[in-house]
């Protein structure tokens, strides 16, 4: 489904990603983990077109994504959430979703010519209600995004990503800042999304969360993929353990 082929990203002399090869099959939740600064979010930025690779290619269902502007990539069916929430704070929850449905309804010309209430606005509103209900924000449609609680904002951001009608959903640390109960709820929500046929890729630091959820995991360290496989395999991989815990002094001292 999604393929990163020999992707490199350099900023001057800084090698952020080095020869990253990833093939993510359809169905199943795919996890991307690694220590801070390993380049995980950078990979999301490359997939969504915010950054262009210095070398290599990104393909989605056989089509090249690199070099395309982000809004086109979204329309091909890739949506994402952000590590730090990026809602339109002054807009209501419903409006946040309506903005996200603007892209699939055609470009700026259509938006200019369409008046209020016409051009599928009723259909979009109905879909917004549906999505709000799905993330348990049905009674908060009119509330400004900035007035929602942290957990509600996270759920609204998820709904907003879904509103673009994705085939692949990229979640960047969706459980950050959540308590155990909220994490459990989020997990079952993600599982439900996967069961409905959506492809999902997650960056997450919470190991319990990711090990339970993902069918497969790739580990990124210093811009390279150092391991990939089922959660149990990855957990036992000595390179992964080293990346996370370091190695003990004795073995480090050996040449």
């Amino acid at each position: 489904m999604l393929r990163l082929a020999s992707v490199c990203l350099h900023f001057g002399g800084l090698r952020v990603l080095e020869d990253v090869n990833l093939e993510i099959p359809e169905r199943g939740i795919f996890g991307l983990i690694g220590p801070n600064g390993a380049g995980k979010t950078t990979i999301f930025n490359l997939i969504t077109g915010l950054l262009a690779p210095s070398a290599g290619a990104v393909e989605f269902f056989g089509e090249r994504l690199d070099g395309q502007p982000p809004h086109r990539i979204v329309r091909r069916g890739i949506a994402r959430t952000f590590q730090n929430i990026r809602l339109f704070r002054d807009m209501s929850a419903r409006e946040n979703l309506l903005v996200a449905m603007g892209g699939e309804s055609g470009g700026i010309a259509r938006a200019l010519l369409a008046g209020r209430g016409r051009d599928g606005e009723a259909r979009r509103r109905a879909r917004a209600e549906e999505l709000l209900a799905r993330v348990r924000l049905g009674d908060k449609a009119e509330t400004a995004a900035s007035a929602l609680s942290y957990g509600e904002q996270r759920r609204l951001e998820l709904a907003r990503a879904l509103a673009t009608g994705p085939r692949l959903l990229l979640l960047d640390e969706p459980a950050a800042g959540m308590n155990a109960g909220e994490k459990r709820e989020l997990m079952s929500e993600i599982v439900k999304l996967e069961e409905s046929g959506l492809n999902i890729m997650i960056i997450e630091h919470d190991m319990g969360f990711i090990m339970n959820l993902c069918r497969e995991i790739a580990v990124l360290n210093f811009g390279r993929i150092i391991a990939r496989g089922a959660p149990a395999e990855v957990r036992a991989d000595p390179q992964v353990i080293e990346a996370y815990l370091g190695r003990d002094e004795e073995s480090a001292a050996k040449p």
Partner: protein
Amino acid sequence: MEWLETFWATYSTLALSVGTNILLALSIYLTLACGLLTVANAAFMGIGAYTAALLTLNAGAPFGAAVLAGALLAAAAALAIGRPTLRLSGVYLAMATLAFGEVVRILILNAEDLTGGALGLNGIPQLAGAVHVLVAVAAALAILLRLAHSRFGRAIAAIRQDEIAAELLGLDVGAYKLFCFVAGAALAGLAGALNAHFTFFIGPSEFGFERAVEILAMGVLGGVASPWGAALGAALITLLPEMLRGLGHYRPLINGLILILIILYSPNGLWDLVRAAARRARAARAGTPC
């Protein structure tokens, strides 16, 4: 009706200035509304003014065609500089558009054969009347109000608040910005073309930095919440100095003070203040404490 005639004889230029300033404020509203800080609108106004005035003066073009040509040429200039400059943001975009404004002013100043240089253009036929200005303002306001309440308005509000998030939700941010910039330039060009045809004279200094800042002030004062805000900002900036005429030397001081106070107490613009007052009035009528 005699008092009306006297009133109009005294204040017609002021009234027409309010009208063209509303057009200018709406032109900057369009770019401010999608989060762009541009200061090229005085230059676009100049392009519109010179184009239209030269066409009626030298080519004997009909007034309507001259005004249209002024607006279109300003839009074409915006299209040409918009593509490279709109990738910039914040202060850098302001600098680039400021530089463009200076280029236009200096071009006008030096193309003496065509523009009269520093002496400006004299004896422009006074073809623009209250009706023309009124129709232009009403049409511009109606169109922008309709846009503001449509999917388009929602999109530019999203771009203003977080352009990366908007782009990643499938909005072609670049196209929206370019459209607002070009449409704003057309409005400024229209304002310039109309303005030239009731002031009799235009010169390059009218379209320089000071005018650019004045336009920006009208837009910022009005706020981006609604096109009505821009109209209100323009009316206030134009009329306030007139209302303070009795203050003599202190006039600029008090004028500035009032503007500072408004921005301090209503940083989101005048229209925000009006809306808040309306909300409070409604709440009071409904009998609920606010």
